[in-house]
Each structure stands twice: as C-alpha cells, then as structure tokens.
C-alpha cells in the first residue's frame, strides 16, 4: 500500500500482530517451518 505521491508505504506503528502459544516448542517449530519445510 503506497501513500501519496512519495511512493512510500503507508506507515503503521511497529507491533506484534498476533501471538500463538503452543504446548511445546517442537509444535511451534513445526508450525513455523510449515508442512514441507524444516525448522
């Protein structure tokens, strides 16, 4: 999303959009890696 004539992107304050808590780090790692990737 570009703002005005400057060609710069629309600013939004930096933030953590979401937090997803997992029972174990291994599960979180699996989610991070996706179904085919590796952590």
């Amino acid at each position, binding site marked *: 999303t570009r703002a005005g004539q400057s060609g710069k992107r629309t600013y939004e304050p*930096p933030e*953590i959009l979401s937090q*997803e*808590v997992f029972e174990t780090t291994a599960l979180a790692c699996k989610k991070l890696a996706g179904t085919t990737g590796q952590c």
Partner: protein
Amino acid sequence: MPETYLTQSPRVAWRVYDGEAVVLSPDDSTLNTLNSVGTLIWESADGMTPVSAIVARICEEFAVDPERAGRDTLAFIATLRVRGLVTVSETIPQAR
C-alpha cells in the same frame, strides 16, 4: 544520547511470510507475528546497525516523520526486550 544497537536473541528462530516476520520464542513456545514496520526493525536487529539507522530506514520506506518513527521504534524495542526476543547494547556486541 548514546547510540544503541539491537541484537536478535540467539535462542529464537524466525521466518518471513508475506512480508511479516514470524518469530518463535522457545522460552514460552510462542509464535509472534510482526507487522511490516516491526519486521523491518526485526530484520535490522543484527547487532551492527544502530537504532538511529533503523529509524532512518523506516523513514525511507514509510511515510512517517523521524520523531514519530523514533518514538514508536523505542516502544517496540522495549516490547521485544521484555519478551526476551532482543538485547540492547550501547556498543556493538562481540562476534560469537
């Protein structure tokens, strides 16, 4: 005001999906998804780039004035620090 440097915790794992960094904190098994400005800050947290340069980079890419970008960046860094995702130093950390 002294220059400060931001370094990602060596304990975290992260990836960028669709321009948003997803950061895994192993301490509490939490995935934190950052917005685009947060992702820019996160990717710049290499221990070598001063916070002032990160703010300048934000102002180059986004339509924001330096004063607001600086204020928001410091608040965000404080949040990351509390969660143990980054460390802040007034000197460039020694290479591991």
